Each structure stands twice: as C-alpha cells, then as structure tokens.
C-alpha cells in the first residue's frame, strides 16, 4: 500500500508535450469536477484518502485541468466509488480474504469490460479466467493492452453484445446474404421432396 502511494506521488504531472511528463491533465472542467466529487463521496462513505485528493499546487498547473493521482483505501464493496465509473486518476483499494471473494466483488458491479489477476498459482489463474464476468481478462498484466486483431468489448452495462476489433467487428459491419442456386431444371420443394 505504502509503495503504491510513494510511486503515485512520484509520478510527474505536467503538459503531455513535455518529455518528462508521466501524467497529463484531465480533459475538461466537468471531468475534474466529477473526480473531485467522487473523491469527496468516497471519504463520506468511509474510505481513507491515502494520497492525492487535490489539484497539484504550483503555477505550472494553474491553467490546466490537472489532478493528483489519488488512492483511496478501506473501500468496501457497494460503496459508490467501488460501483461507479469515475474516469479519472483515482484508485480504490479493497481488501478481500480470498480469491472467491475477489471474484464476487468484481462480478458485483454493473459494468463488465475487463479485469486482471496477478498470481503465480496456475489454478487460481484459470479459476479467474473462467469466473470473472468481463469481456476481457488479463493474467499478470494490467487491464490495458488490447490488440487490434482480437475482439474488444464487455458484458452487462458495458455493451450490448457486439465486439469491436478482431474478426467479430467485420460481422457487425456487414450483412449476411444467403444464396440458393437450383441447377436441376425442375421445381424442387425443400422439406417436401425429401426422397433424395
């Protein structure tokens, strides 16, 4: 936990065009307000602000939509910060007692895009691949890193059953046409002329 916070605090904020920058600004005012709102909600619900939780200080940040990388600890399943999409640099940390509980917590949100598991236990990895209710699961890798030739998308409130990317998207953008060619020269009735 402490390591996460230390590393989060070391991330260099700034304009994305500067080579030393590691984290850029949010997209606009509404996005930053939303993040500020959820960090407040999380604390009201009983989560602890471990780091971040504010705009960065300094003149360099005055005219941009910057927000410090933020970590909330003590987050419990069912809290709004656990259930709702914040779309900003806020990490919620939830402690669970077992893999089963972790899977339950993952599956008990309305969304279902991606998930990941870090383990060296092959049985646990395969259990997770099978039981995590998402469109994509990563093993020993973060939930970022989809490749263009595999289907991308999620279940539940994340999508409506279609996938982007990969071979599946070509079905989405085309229509199936079925053609029958009868070259017998006579009327053949399907389902009726069944003697063959």
């Amino acid at each position, binding site marked *: 936990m402490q*390591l*996460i916070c230390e590393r*989060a605090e070391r991330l260099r904020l700034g*304009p*994305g*065009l500067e080579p030393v920058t*590691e*984290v850029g*600004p*949010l*997209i606009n005012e509404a996005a930053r307000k939303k993040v500020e709102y959820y960090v407040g909600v999380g604390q009201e619900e009983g989560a602890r602000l471990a780091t971040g939780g504010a705009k960065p200080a300094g003149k360099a940040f005055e005219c*941009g939509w910057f927000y410090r*990388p933020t970590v909330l600890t003590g987050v419990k399943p069912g809290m709004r910060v*656990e*259930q709702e999409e*914040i779309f900003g640099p*806020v*990490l919620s940390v*939830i402690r669970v*007692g077992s*893999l089963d*509980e972790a*899977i339950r*917590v993952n599956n008990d*949100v309305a*969304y279902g*895009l*991606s998930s*990941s*598991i*870090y*383990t*060296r*236990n092959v049985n*646990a990895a395969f259990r*997770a691949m099978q039981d995590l209710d998402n469109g*994509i699961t990563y093993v020993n*890798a*973060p*939930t*970022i890193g989809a490749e*263009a*030739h595999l289907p*991308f998308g999620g279940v539940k409130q*994340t*999508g*409506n059953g279609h996938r*982007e990317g990969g071979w599946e*998207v*070509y079905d989405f*953008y*085309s*229509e199936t046409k079925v*053609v*029958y*060619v*009868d070259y017998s020269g006579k009327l*053949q009735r*399907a389902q009726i*002329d069944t003697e063959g």
Partner: protein
Amino acid sequence: MTETFRNFIAGQWAPPATDDYFENRNPADWNDLIGLFPKSGPEDVRRAVESARRGFVEWSRTPAPVRGEVLHRVGDLLVEQKERIARAMTREMGKVVLETKGDVQEGVDTAYYAHTEGRRLFGRTVPSELRNKWAMSYRRPIGVAGVITPFNFPLAVPTWKLFPALLCGNAVIWKPSEDVPHTANLLVEVLLEAGLPPEVIQVVHGLGEAAGKALVEHPGVDVISFTGSTDTGAIIGATCGRMHKRLSLEMGGKNAMIVLEDADLDLALDGVLWGAFGTTGQRCTARSGYTTSSCS
C-alpha cells in the same frame, strides 16, 4: 489569428449550416486555443447523409481486396505521420506523447489488419438437402454507418469503427468528440490522401445533443456504433431499437485488478500504476478497483 476548422461533407471541407462554432482548447493550458470547430446541426447531417448514400453506391461495388489496399495506404501514411498526429492529439487531449503515439500505432495495426481482411471476408458454402442445388452465404455491405466516438482515444477508437466499416464497403459519417475534433480532421486528411473516394467519408463536428442526435435519428443511416457513457448509450439504444438500426455500444467499465498473496508484487505494482494513472485514468479500461487477497 484563430484558425477556423470545417466539417468534411459531400467531398469538401464545408462550414456548418448553423454558422455556429465551438472552441477547442488545450486542457494543459486553456490559454492555448487550438481553433474553432463547427457546431453542426440536423441540416449538416442531412447533407452528409445525402452524399454518403452516393458514396456508398460506388464504394460497395469496389472489390473488397481493392478497398483493403486503400486501408493499407492509410496504415503507411499513419506510420509516416505518427509524430505529427501524436503531438496534435496531445495538444488537444492532454495525455503524454508516448501514449498518443501508441494511439496512432493502434490505428496502424487496425489499418493493416483491415487490409488483410479485404482478402478474406469469408462466406460459407454448405451442402443443400436437395440434388443439383447449391447453398451458400456471403458478407455484403450494409449502407451508411454513423460513428460516434469519445475523447480518450482520439484516433485509435475511431479507427476500430471506421476501418472495418469501410473495408466492408460501407460509407461512414463520423461525429467525433467535441473535445478532440482536430485529430478527427487529421485522420480524414490521411484517408483522402490514401485514395478513399471523398463521398465515402463525412465528418460532422458538434455536440452529441445536436449533431449526434440528428445522426442517430436520420433514417438514411443504417448502422450506429457508439463509444461513450452508459447513459447516452441508453438513449441511442432506444432510438435504434425503435428504428430497427443495427447498433454497437461500448460504454463504461470498472476493471478490477486482483492481486493474490503469491503474486510478483513488483510486477503488480507496475501494472496498477499504469492501469490506474495512465491516460490520467480516463480509459474505459482504467483500473479503479484494486483488490488484494490476504489468503488464497
């Protein structure tokens, strides 16, 4: 002198019928005005549909492998222009150049993949239950696809929609996010330079509630693909359901990461930081739950 950008409708860069514009500013420095972009309305969408229907007639009859060649050239041009497009993207969207270059690379990968698909698009041939009878299926183009994209991947996500739609022989009308309209115009320039017939691609800038809504509701648009919020997706879904339009929705995410006791913790730490704070947390796959297990 503020630059004024245009829509791309009916084969040319066109001002909006509304004569109304919005500002596009750098999120890292809001004193940096990138330009004014069209705040389009239903009339702009109507013109785009009229042109796209013409574009579709020509493009749908172009052999799929030939359509694929155009997308191959698109990939080559994106490789050549990666640095320039990435910097423009960072300026209007905010994420670091390392990531916007990755965003362009995803477009390159998608273009080359689409190119090869032009020589597949497999149908199926199956036996008939009768003698002297042939039965098969093939994939044919649908018509005009309306594409609505978000700000967080200004180039990559649009290419996921545009390139397969084009490869399949459809014409596309694209309403990009009002936060990243400049990247959209740069991608259209690439498509045209690669040899895409001009009426096959249309870009209508503006806000979701005006331009986006008009696009979804226009009867001349057969397919809608939307990436964005779950609330907006529900509204689009209702309209498409009523109008019997094919619809692909890609919306919110929560994306838990589970770290078990036996995990390589250094690896997990690198992953959690990249997942939670990359793109300033503005990815639909951003890590927002991090779950540790104390006994596994």
